[in-house]
């Protein structure tokens, strides 16, 4: 649905994005990266606010810049705005529904539907200036989906939301993705993104560092061994046995009488498949078993720090 | 109480040995910068920090100096005009307007006054003031971004903040006003020093300095007052420019309407025709140069000089306007954001 081919964009001497090639398909894709990574530039390119300096950007088969045909099927929720405070939420969504090309007769009902969809029915007739941050985000999502777009791009939709609000917005987005929409979400809140989707685009310094399923990416990072924390009454004995395994790099106990051993391995799949047999064979009593490393944050940190180190070198 | 963990000092390396990095054994990064105990700038310079930051943003933009350079043109034209035709014009003026010839020295102050009160100069100085006081460095922009909460959470007070913003506008306008004026003065000094320039106009340097300080202080005070009450730099620009221009076009019309009641040369009519923001500045400049108003390059049809307006009403008007503006700014500046429901 969204295709970038060797797209670059610079602002004078500053590079916004650098030779980015990727395909974004239906479902939720999280756009991640530290500040200044190029996420906003990428979003502006996808939403047709900017043109690439080189390369191509196509959305639904067409270049999006100033293209009404693309915008009929694209919804955008920007991060910031200031000027709508005097309008009620309903009026705001209605105005943008009109601008979205919906038939005038169907707009009132459609607006009511999307306002109910985002859970703003009670507050729709209040001025946006009196809304909380979460309410503003919901109204922005409402205007983004009022014309039932096939592609929805949201810039930091979870910012400023309380945990309940984040859960609700996450639910909304998941519901849209289940309908076959292509949803692109830019966010800093990694653990929430992890609940939202496994499909990520990771950027840093204007470059695309990784794209795809987070666990697949994780498993491909050979240089960074997986850590697995295992709790057991016989942690020391367990550690001795684990060290005999060829694919275990290290086993660490924090104290001689510690009940947790932290194992490092480059072959987590092999470890996971053989560990249960080993435990049964030796009768180890395992209390808990988890991988603190197998998450988005560790992938993010590793790839971003690695690219940062290379950039400074 | 020092809440930071003590840093383990690095192992001293023998001379000549390769330097090795010492890995600190604390998981918390080095926060020793928080315990800065070096020299601190005295409080009297707090305003300068605010001023310097705003000036840096403004003065590094090439278009600012591009616009400022236009101010050179009136002075350049007067320098050329006086060099080639000055003495002839002065003689004709002296014949046409005997009142001028009675003045002890009017040649050079007349040039300086005419260049200063030229419309181009006034427009450019107003533009510079608007760029400094109603742009991205203005109080209105800080209101818009809720930056006052940040400013006033630092060890600076309202007065420091206002003074810093005021000085930004003041210095910007003063520099743009003073450089061309001083250049013209130096031109006269170098070319006419042996022809009685210093004798004829010994205080011209002081008059020039005083008159360039006028628009700087005036615009700075009024703009600070208007910007403090606004959250939109655009509106500040529109309001201040609008006030300037509406009063500037209305005052002469008002003067003409009332000229049958107060004759043209009466002090009342003179005051009315100077009843505008720019008129106050022009009237004060006239008094500083002690010069009647004669349109030097374009002689008016009626052979008539407009005398100086009275000084004290203009001084009082300018002080009142500046005082009200500054008081309004001080009353409005708050560190908190008031949210209306």
């Amino acid at each position: 649905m969204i295709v970038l081919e060797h797209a670059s964009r610079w602002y004078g001497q500053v590079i916004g994005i650098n030779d980015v090639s990727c395909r974004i398909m239906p479902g939720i894709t999280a756009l991640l990266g530290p500040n200044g990574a190029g996420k906003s530039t990428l979003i502006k390119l996808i939403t047709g606010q900017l043109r690439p300096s080189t390369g191509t950007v196509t959305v639904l088969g067409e270049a999006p810049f100033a293209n009404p045909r693309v915008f009929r099927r694209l919804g955008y929720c920007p991060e910031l705005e200031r000027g709508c405070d005097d309008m009620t939420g309903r009026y705001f969504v209605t105005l943008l529904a009109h601008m979205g090309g919906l038939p005038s007769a169907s707009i009132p009902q459609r607006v009511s539907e999307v306002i109910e969809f985002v859970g703003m029915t009670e507050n729709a007739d209040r001025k946006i200036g009196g809304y909380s941050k979460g309410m503003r985000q919901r109204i922005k999502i409402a205007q983004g989906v009022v014309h039932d777009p096939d592609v929805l791009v949201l810039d930091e939709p979870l910012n400023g939301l309380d945990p309940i609000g984040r859960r609700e917005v996450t639910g909304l987005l998941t519901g849209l993705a289940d309908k076959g929409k292509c949803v692109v979400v830019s966010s800093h809140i990694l653990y929430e993104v992890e609940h939202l989707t496994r499909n990520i685009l990771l950027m840093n310094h204007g470059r695309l560092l990784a794209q795809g399923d987070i666990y697949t990416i994780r498993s491909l990072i050979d240089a960074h061994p997986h850590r697995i924390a295992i709790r057991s009454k016989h942690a020391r004995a367990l550690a001795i046995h684990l060290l005999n395994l060829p694919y275990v790099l290290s086993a660490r106990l924090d104290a001689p009488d510690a009940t947790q051993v932290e194992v490092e391995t480059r072959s987590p799949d092999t470890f996971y498949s053989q560990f249960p047999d080993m435990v049964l064979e030796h009768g180890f009593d395992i209390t808990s078993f988890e991988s603190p490393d197998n998450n988005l944050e560790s992938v993010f940190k590793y790839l971003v720090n690695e690219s940062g180190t290379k950039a400074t070198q | 109480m020092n809440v930071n963990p003590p840093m383990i000092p690095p192992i001293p390396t023998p001379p000549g040995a390769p330097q090795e990095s010492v890995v600190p054994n604390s998981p918390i990064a080095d926060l020793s910068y928080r315990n800065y105990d070096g020299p601190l700038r005295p409080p009297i310079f707090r305003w300068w920090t605010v001023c310097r930051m705003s000036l840096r943003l403004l003065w590094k933009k090439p278009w600012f100096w591009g616009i400022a350079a236009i101010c050179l043109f009136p002075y350049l034209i007067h320098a050329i005009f006086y060099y080639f035709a000055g003495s002839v014009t002065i003689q004709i003026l002296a014949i046409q307007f005997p009142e001028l010839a009675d003045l002890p020295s009017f040649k050079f102050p007349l040039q300086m006054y005419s260049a200063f009160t030229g419309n181009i100069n006034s427009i450019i100085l107003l533009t510079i003031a608007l760029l400094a006081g109603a742009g991205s460095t203005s109080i209105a922009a800080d209101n818009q971004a809720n930056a006052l909460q940040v400013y006033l959470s630092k060890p600076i007070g309202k007065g420091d903040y206002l003074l810093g913003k005021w000085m930004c506008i003041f210095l910007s306008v003063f520099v743009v006003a003073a450089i061309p004026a001083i250049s013209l003065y130096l031109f006269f000094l170098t070319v006419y020093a042996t022809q009685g320039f210093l004798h004829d106009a010994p205080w011209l340097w002081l008059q020039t300095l005083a008159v360039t300080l006028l628009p700087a202080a005036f615009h700075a005070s009024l703009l600070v007052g208007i910007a403090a009450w606004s959250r939109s730099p655009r509106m500040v620009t529109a309001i201040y420019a609008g006030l300037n221009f509406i009063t500037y076009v209305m005052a002469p019309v008002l003067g003409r309407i009332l000229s049958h009641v107060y004759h043209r040369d009466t002090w009342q009519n003179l005051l009315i025709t100077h009843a505008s923001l720019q008129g106050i500045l022009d009237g004060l400049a006239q008094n500083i140069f002690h010069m009647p108003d004669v349109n030097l390059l374009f002689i008016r049809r009626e052979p008539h000089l407009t005398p100086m307006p009275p000084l004290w009403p203009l001084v009082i008007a300018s002080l009142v306007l500046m005082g009200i503006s500054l008081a309004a700014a001080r009353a409005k500046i708050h560190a908190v954001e008031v949210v209306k429901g």
Partner: protein
Amino acid sequence: MSDLYLFQNALKDLLRPRRLLLALFLIATPTLLVILWRMTLKHADAIPPDSIYNEVSGRIIFGFILVLLSVVFSTSVISQEIENKTVSYLLTRPLPRWRFLLLKFIAVFLVTTAIAEIAVIVIAQIIYGSSGLGQAGPRQDMALLPLGVLTFGSLFLMIASLLNRPLILGLMYGFGWESVMSIFAASAPGSFNHLFLISYFRALAPHLMPSDEGGSLQLFNSNLPPTPIPIWLAWTVLSSVCVLCLGGALYFFSTREYVPRDDAE
């Protein structure tokens, strides 16, 4: 129908209470002047009605209200959206950009013209009484004001579509180049006055020339008076400015990039 809705929204935005206050102030200003003039009518040497009308019309309505409103409202069509960061919403709608800009500009044109026309009607009624609108001066002004709004409005709209600080540049042009320089142009030799838009309006309505301007350069060039502008040239130039500037604004807005910015003005 969506065009109508957008147009209504643009009108609603322009007719907000704060903006109406500004309009009221701009209408009240010349009104107060002419009321003051009426109070002086009993004096033998009071200014005649035609003179005062010409003065107020030339200096205040055409020289100030028209220019100020055109600058502020026309530049706000684009700048306000960028400053409020709502431009992202507008530019990602399935509406051709030029159409959106045109709808907003039409709203600006109507409001600006209405304010200026109301000002003319009010001062004509006060100066001339009930026969005010039958006088030549007010009739000419009411016919000319829409052209004036269109000319200056489209010029400043194009400036806004091209440059980052259109309000200040527009003010410098409107009150610097046009107002100030036209004073010199009125007495400048030859065709110098052809460089100023206000000269063309004065060619179409000679009563707009303020009475104490145009002091001749008696000492220097009495043999080179200013070249008068023929009426056909005035219409041609003003119409061309409207068409070219409006067309240029629509073209540039359709093809250039606009992103939210804090220092839009």
